[in-house]
């Protein structure tokens, strides 16, 4: 093995010491501490959760994030706009295309460019397909977390088809790098729309399957109903967004209630689902319904796809005029926004990324107090965060 460099050895030793310290001071007082993560099988990605148990009951819990911190906000300062676009695919790696959109929109806002309608429609279609790819995986993963292996396989089986469609357009299975300031990189290939509609049918049948297999299952209900209840006000004060807050009965969706950022959601009819309970079951259920809605949205957009160019007039070398802009959209995980500060050169001067998962996990310590060990997993799974989206 290539020898570890001096620097790394030092850093290594340091970090180990730090870990020990955490553990030890946790151990000093009564009860036992349980380390879930950094690579506990349950957390895809590497959230580390430290829980202090009394028997099987959690008396105190906290999240130790940062295992996936890649310094995005710093990196964006040394990249040009096209390069940033491809980089930020990797923030929420399941709904990649959805990450590009708000950034591009913010840049367009600064440059006062309007993407042509066809581009806007295709953007929205891909946006929603990203949501589907994302949440379908969630539904499968949910089963695994609860001990049912089969749903995961079904989820991956049908997700593949969505990815195929995305790849057919963008060339990337889930890192598309397809959105451009002022439009899109390329247009749809022939026969794509027909295929997509077929896929949407598949997805809908998948939703029914999952509903029979998982959501209808009494055991599943027993595991999730009344577990990890988030009251609306608490949720709001912790800054929950997306399905998590809608599951607490707050009827609020940026796609409908936010400012018109230039996506085509307002041209089609669909509904925002909410659930009064605010427990784990509600969160999962709301997501299931959102998937169905997303398929409907895609179908309608495919029908109403206008013809025309996909790119507005933009200079070959993109320089964004000085200024500041903030745009956020309803991403699969919740509200995601970019605050861009530009000094008028090739790349942004400063970017602040508001990612949904970060605020979603911030409620975990509050939520986990007094629950049983098995419920930790249920709750984490139903909150549905993505590590890259927490740590950036």
């Amino acid at each position: 093995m290539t020898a570890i460099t001096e620097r790394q050895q030092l850093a290594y030793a340091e970090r180990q010491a730090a870990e020990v310290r955490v553990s030890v001071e946790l151990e000093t007082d009564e009860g036992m501490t349980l380390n879930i993560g950094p690579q506990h099988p349950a957390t895809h990605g590497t959230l580390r959760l430290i829980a202090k148990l009394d028997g099987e009951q959690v008396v105190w819990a906290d999240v130790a994030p940062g295992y996936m911190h890649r310094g995005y906000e710093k990196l964006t300062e040394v990249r040009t706009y096209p390069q940033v676009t491809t980089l930020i695919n990797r923030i929420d790696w399941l709904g990649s295309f959805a990450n590009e959109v708000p950034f591009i929109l913010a840049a367009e806002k600064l440059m006062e460019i309007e993407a042509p309608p066809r581009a806007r429609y295709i953007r929205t279609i891909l946006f929603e397909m990203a949501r589907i790819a994302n949440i379908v995986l969630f539904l499968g993963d949910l089963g695994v977390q609860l001990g049912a292996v089969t749903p995961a396989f079904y989820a991956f089986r049908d997700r593949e088809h969505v990815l195929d469609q995305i790849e057919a357009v963008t060339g990337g299975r889930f890192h598309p790098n397809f959105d451009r300031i002022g439009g899109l990189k390329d247009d749809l290939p022939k026969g794509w729309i027909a295929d997509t509609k077929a896929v949407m049918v598949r997805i809908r049948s998948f939703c029914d399957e999952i509903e029979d297999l998982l959501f209808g299952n009494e055991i599943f209900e027993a595991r999730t109903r009344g577990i990890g209840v988030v009251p609306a006000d608490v949720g709001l004060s912790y800054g929950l967004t997306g399905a998590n807050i809608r599951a607490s009965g707050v009827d609020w969706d940026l796609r409908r209630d936010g400012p018109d950022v230039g996506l085509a959601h307002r041209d089609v009819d669909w509904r925002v689902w909410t659930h009064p309970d605010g427990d784990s079951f509600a969160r999962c259920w709301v997501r299931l319904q959102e998937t169905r809605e997303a398929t409907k949205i895609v179908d309608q957009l495919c029908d109403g796809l206008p013809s025309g160019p996909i790119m507005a007039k933009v200079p070959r070398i993109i320089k964004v005029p000085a200024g500041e802009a903030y745009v956020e959209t309803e991403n699969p995980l919740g509200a995601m926004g970019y605050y861009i500060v530009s000094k008028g050169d090739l790349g942004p001067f400063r970017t602040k990324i508001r990612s949904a998962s970060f605020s979603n996990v911030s409620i975990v310590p509050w939520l986990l107090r007094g629950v049983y060990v098995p419920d930790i997993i249920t709750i984490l799974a139903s909150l549905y965060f993505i590590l890259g989206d927490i740590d950036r």
Partner: protein
Amino acid sequence: MSGAPLATALMTAVELSWWQQTVLRSIGVLVAVLIPAGTLVYVFLFKMMSFMQSRLGPMEAGPYGSMQLLAEVGKWIQKEDLVPWRADRKLFALAPYVVVLSVFLIYLVVPFGPDAWFTNLDTGVFWIMAVSSISVVGILIAGWASANKYSLLGGLRAAGQLIAYELPMVLAVLGVVIQAGTLNLQDIVAAQHEGEIFGWGFIGNPYILTQLVGFFIFLVATQAELTQTPFDMPIAESELVSGYMTEYSGMRFLLFFIAEFATAGAFSAVAATLFLGGWSLPWVDLDADYMNVIGPIVLLAKMMLVAFLIFWVRFTYPRFREDQLQQLAWKILIPLSLVNILATMVLKVAF
């Protein structure tokens, strides 16, 4: 002459001394343990699960992956097996043996044909209940000796669960015993073959008909005893890594693995014997000699049937939470089986 040998033919052909026979038979049992276990793993864990998920399962190792198991064994043999520093070495090594042996001892009393059985204990069923409860000790040791939180929690959960479901199982069996009026498995099979349901003895009386409740209780209990979904809390991967097996690797882990599926085979065999008429076929003369050959096949078939149910559930359901699991045992199964016993007694005496 001792309790009749594995096959009378063997006896008549060569007049073996009692010891040689016994050793031979013991090896026979080992085979009888490993073959079903292997079949279960391949047929159900690999193939059936894959098909249920529209996959193929192992394909490369041998035609249709039939050599997969050999590969597994070969791999595990050459896998280093580690003992954590803080573990209690002796007990850590002991635990897998205890678990495996308790399984082997179950097979000892299951009859495969009129003369094809290993030892014909007068206390058959009772013996099974007794030896199957030994594995709890093994699991507790494993969890304790690993000196690992996941292991300890897992071990305690496993033990708590096993004993909680041992009881419904015993009580469900009790119903059968009352009906058959004997503990001896051979006699129970006979009783089912000759028995009649309220005077109507067309296909004999496989107790699944009259003891339906008992059968379901037994199945649920089996599922729990095997720590399979929906009762796989002790080895809940997404919660307690692998429960009491977390620290085990190499051969020792393989032992646990074998034990798990051997137990599955054992309990399905027992269920088949107690509720499905064991090796006997309706309308076929019980002590015909050829049953010594057909009997094992029949039993295996019935066994697979039960196992299919068990694994089908395993691959479909999410898992219970610890408390729900205990409540199911104490608040539903046990009262139910008590009622079942009382009812059986009354009926038995009434008719």
